[in-house]
């Protein structure tokens, strides 16, 4: 459905240096895919979106939607944006201040080319859209009288009201509270499934990305470093950056031991800080690796911990609690292991709290530790 | 000699040092040459002039004096005089140099005198109208061939359409005159609310073959440069003396008098004559003698003195509005 080939659009700052944009983006999505662009602020998500929308002219590459090329540098094709039949939510909501909420949402139908909508049709369609975003009562409000979140929701309603084939969403929920955001996620997902819309979704909230997406692309400094399913991205990140960016993790640097010895697929890695750890390894990672251990995979025990830990099946580290922060359903602990400066981050249930300074033992199975490329 | 102003006047004037002249004359044909000549003769006196239409001039002086802040010393222009006289803002002064000027160009009791006179008559585009087709008399204007072909300046002064009406009424008498005017109105003359000169230019470019109420001296000026234009001695021609006067309560009365003296003098009029103005002093030769009523080819005139005008103008304007709008 959506296909990007070597799509490039960079903003040159001083000659040579890279100021921002997107480089050599390659993507091929089947219809109905929920595709998410994930990446740090300023990495090029919006730029990519704007290129697909036709708001920016790429420097090179091709954009193909449903078989028809929308942009092709060589062939000199560049379909004007209003012919692309795309729904879009702008990061700056771009609500028209001179129109009422209703008019804002109705606009795409009023100007639709494929067919004229009757007043009644528009009224119902807009009504639905507003209900979906939870602004039922606000139709007649002037757009200037809305709160930030409400404006954002109007933008969303405007993007979905005419059921486009392709939906581009630039952080559409960033200003909504958790529960509302969740509601809207579900609504969006439902809509997208029912109508078989292909959605390109920009978010900075990884849990959102993991929960909603069929495919995720992680962008770093304008390059797509990994494209894959949520579980791929989360459980087998290609490198340190992805591992660190998607979800919290503890990164240890080390060198794969010369002997590939170990139980099953396990490797043993000699840590820079000293000490050794047994872990899975992405195949093909060179001797110098970064090891990622998710906080939630580490089990905390008070003091020396149970004898069970003694046997060689698990990695065991002793340390001391240096910080704890309460997040409701979990508590984040920071733990300094003996003989290493590297602070560990561990999640545990709030039921049995550990005090600051108390000695603890960290346990995690080799499967929970993954060796990936550095950088 | 007449054109040498009395010594004490000169001294008094030089003491004042400057003189301010509100003029309605053309700056580089009349005003600047006159000023130059004057300052050459009286180096100690500096002449400042300000050019405006005679009605604006009047407006200024009236306001200045009512604010007790008179700036102007000398003014010229019929329009101005007609206002300033009843407003009692004119200082009578009989210049010695005015002695040679014929009586008809001087006010009854020394309120004004004219260094030059304007004649107004019809003019034709010689490319479009041959000498013999050209109208000779006012009656000829009623010929159907001139319907829609005539243009005139309708500035509400004796030098515009109202002047023409006045001339007719004065020469033909009330009812014959009115009868004539009715017929003329039927000829559908084009009204142009611009200066007579601009109207003449319309004739020169050929927008119209025939214009009424043009300054007779403008035609030879253009003709000299090759323009296809000539003026018609349609008698009686309108004569309008250009009044010069002294402002009452002038800040520099003596310098003012001296300037007037100079303008009226033979010397001054000679300068004016160079600029194609028509001198009133019989001893000064006009550049184109034919233009003078008393020249080699004399013609009858209707003299529009300020007195005549201020008495008749309102009536003429009324008639004009009734018949020609």
């Amino acid at each position, binding site marked *: 459905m959506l296909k990007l080939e070597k799509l490039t659009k960079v903003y040159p700052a001083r000659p040579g240096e890279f100021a921002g944009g997107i480089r050599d983006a390659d993507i091929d999505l089947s219809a109905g895919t929920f595709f998410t662009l994930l990446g740090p602020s300023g990495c090029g998500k919006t730029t990519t979106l704007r290129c697909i929308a036709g708001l920016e002219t790429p420097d090179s590459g091709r954009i193909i939607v449903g078989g028809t090329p929308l942009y092709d540098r060589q062939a000199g094709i560049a379909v004007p944006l209003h012919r692309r039949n795309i729904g879009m939510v702008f990061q700056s909501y*771009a609500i*028209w201040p001179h129109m009422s909420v209703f008019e804002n949402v109705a*606009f*795409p139908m009023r100007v639709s080319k494929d067919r004229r909508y009757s007043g009644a049709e528009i009224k119902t369609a807009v009504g639905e859209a507003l209900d979906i975003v939870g602004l039922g009562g606000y139709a007649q409000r002037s757009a*200037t009288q809305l709160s930030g979140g409400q404006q954002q929701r109007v933008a969303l309603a405007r993007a979905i009201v005419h059921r486009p084939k392709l939906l581009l969403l630039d952080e559409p929920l960033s200003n909504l509270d958790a529960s509302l955001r969740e509601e809207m996620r579900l609504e969006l997902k439902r809509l997208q499934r029912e109508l078989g819309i292909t959605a390109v979704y920009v978010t900075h909230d990884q849990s959102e990305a993991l929960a909603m997406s069929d495919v995720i692309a992680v962008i770093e400094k304008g390059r797509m470093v990994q494209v894959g399913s949520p579980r791929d991205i989360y459980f087998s990140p290609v490198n340190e950056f992805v591992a660190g960016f998607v979800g919290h993790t503890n990164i240890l640097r080390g060198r794969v031991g010369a002997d590939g010895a170990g139980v099953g697929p396990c490797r043993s890695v000699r840590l820079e800080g000293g000490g050794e750890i047994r872990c899975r390894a992405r195949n093909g990672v060179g001797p110098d690796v970064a090891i990622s251990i998710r906080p939630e995979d580490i089990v905390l025990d008070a003091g020396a911990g149970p004898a069970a830990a003694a046997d060689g099946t698990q990695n065991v580290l002793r340390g001391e609690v240096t910080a704890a922060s309460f997040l409701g359903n979990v508590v984040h602990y920071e733990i300094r292991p003996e003989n290493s400066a590297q602070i560990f981050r561990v999640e545990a249930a709030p039921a049995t709290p550990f005090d600051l300074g108390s000695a603890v033992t960290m346990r995690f199975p080799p499967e929970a530790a993954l060796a990936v490329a550095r950088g | 000699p007449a054109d040498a102003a009395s010594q004490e006047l000169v001294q008094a004037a030089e003491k004042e040092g400057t003189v301010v002249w509100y003029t309605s004359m053309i700056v580089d044909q009349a005003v*600047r040459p006159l000023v130059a000549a004057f300052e050459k003769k009286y180096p100690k006196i500096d002449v400042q002039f300000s050019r405006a239409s005679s009605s*604006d001039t009047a407006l200024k002086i*009236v306001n200045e004096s009512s604010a007790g802040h008179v700036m102007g010393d000398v003014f010229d222009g019929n329009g101005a005089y007609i*206002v300033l006289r009843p407003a009692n803002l004119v200082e009578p002064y009989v210049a010695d140099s005015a002695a040679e000027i014929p009586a008809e160009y001087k006010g009854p009791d020394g309120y004004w005198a004219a260094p030059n006179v304007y004649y107004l008559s019809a003019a034709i585009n010689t490319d479009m109208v041959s000498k013999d087709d050209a109208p000779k008399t006012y009656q000829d204007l009623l010929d159907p061939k001139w319907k829609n072909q005539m243009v005139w300046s309708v500035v509400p002064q004796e030098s515009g359409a109202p002047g023409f009406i006045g001339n007719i009424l004065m020469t033909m008498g009330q009812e014959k005159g009115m009868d004539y005017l009715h017929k003329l109105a039927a000829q559908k003359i084009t009204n142009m609310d611009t200066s007579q000169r601009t109207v003449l230019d319309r004739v020169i470019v050929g927008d119209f073959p025939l214009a009424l109420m043009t300054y007779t001296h403008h035609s030879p000026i253009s003709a000299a440069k*090759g323009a296809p234009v000539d003026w018609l001695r349609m008698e009686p021609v309108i004569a309008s003396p250009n009044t010069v006067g002294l402002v009452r309560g002038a800040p520099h009365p003596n310098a003012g008098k001296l300037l007037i003296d100079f303008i009226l003098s033979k010397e001054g009029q000679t300068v004016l004559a160079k600029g194609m103005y028509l001198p009133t002093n019989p001893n000064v030769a006009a550049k184109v003698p034919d233009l003078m009523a008393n020249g080699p080819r004399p013609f009858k005139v209707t003299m529009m003195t300020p007195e005549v005008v201020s008495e008749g103008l309102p009536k003429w304007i009324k008639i004009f509005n009734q018949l020609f709008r």
Partner: protein
Amino acid sequence: MTIEQDWPRVSQQKAGARASWLRLDQTRVLVIALAIILGILVAPPAIILLLRSLSITNPDATVGGWTLTHYLRFFTNPDLYRTLVNSLTFALFSTVVALLFGGTLAWLVERTNTRFKALAYLTTVISMGTPYILYVSAWLFLLGRSGPFNDAWRTMTGTRQVLFNPYSLTGMILIEGFLWSPLVFLLLSSTFRSANADLEEAARMSGAGVLRTVWSVSIRMATPAIAALALFVFIRAIEAFEVPALVGMPGNVDVLTTDVYRSIKESIPPDLGYASAYSVVLLVAVAILLHFYGKLSRNAGRYSTVTGKGYRPRQFDLGKWRPVGDALVIFNFLIVLVLPLLALLWLSLLPYMRPMRPSGVAQFSLANFATVLSSEYYRTLAINTLIVGVVAASVGMILALFTGWLSARRKAGAQFVDQLATMPLVFPGIVMGVAFLMIFLSVPLPIYGTIWALAIAYTVRYLPYGLRYTYAGVLQISNELEEAAGASGATPLQSLRRVIAPLLSPALLSGWLFIFLIATKELAVAVLLSGPSSPVVAVGMYDLWVNGQGGELAAFGLIWAAVMTLVASVFYLAGGRAGGAGAH
């Protein structure tokens, strides 16, 4: 609905106002200061206007005795109806012409990738720099009976009839329309320059084509500017003397002002009573219009395009329509600039007026230019005029900046200041001239007869225009940008200087340019106020004009236009660079 929406906000306003009345902060001081300054500048002429309209002018030019005859004359005028209809048609259509022409151009130049944009600016500046009478007469010459068009037509068809008669309502409308399209261009170009591309792109994304986007977003967002322009051109046309006199009268097309004009001209000294009465009537009408116009700022948020989030000015890609845009720009260049200038050039090269025929070429000479350039009289004129123009424009725009800002932000008492500053819009030149004549004569200061008298008069006369530029400009700037400045600790004046003014620079530039160009050719006021020691170009022009030295006049006009263009461009470029983000 709207009422219901409105009342609480009004009451909020009041509440806000009341709270702020408790203290004497900068804005209040500013309002009061402006009220005083403007009061001093505007009130006297206004009062004189009113008095004049109610008093008899005696034949000896003194003013005395009360009367209503002037008003009666207006309302009992037998062909009031006919002239009224003419006036409205004239005003309405010339407004449409100006808006369509200037507006389209402004949009093309500022918001699209059309080429030859420089031409558009050149056209505007030069055509505004060219003296009024010259411009009009050039057009009359072109379209006149013996003008090239009719000439060609006659030679082709052999008839003695004319193809087009400029002395007609159509002629009046076209000429007046073209005369004002530069004003439209300048104001709208500054408006469009500050448009927010995000809002337009959102419309495109929703499937709207360029035109639809322009119609439902760009134009809507520009409402304040457009409304202001409509207001202006309409009012100016309703009260215009020149075109009705020069073009209308010969064609016997009478409008309301024809009668007023006569009333001024027919009596010496001019009887200003009727003219004043007329402008008083206008004043009332304008006040009403302005009242509604003022409502625009009630929910200013509707027009704020310069926001603090994702504000990126970008341009439309016309795509295959680009050549059409280019064509329009060039057409404008030819019609509004090249043709009239050619006519002037033709006249200036000939010893006397001749129709545009090859035969004329034989007589070409530079005599006229030589006279002008050699005469030091003209030089003084030029210098005086430049000084007056720069002063008037600068002072005017500063006052306009403050007033426009206060009024657009609905500060307490600002409406009043706004009204005050807008009044001069309806003063006929001559009435204003006389008023200032009387004022300067009566004040102890030695202003009368100096160029400062002119500078002051022009400042007042053109303040309303400057004000509309700034007012519409401020409405475009989202209030939050000011709030942010305040929250950062900036006093209102500081945020005005550091945030509003820079963002407003496009409007400020255009406004300055407009006043500068139009003031330097103003006649009615000039003739009355320029004393012996302060002659200005306009007066010199008038002299040449009545003297019918067409050639010299044209030469002078061309040289003058060149000078103005030079000055304007220098200023514009300099300002443009200073203008920061606001200007491109």
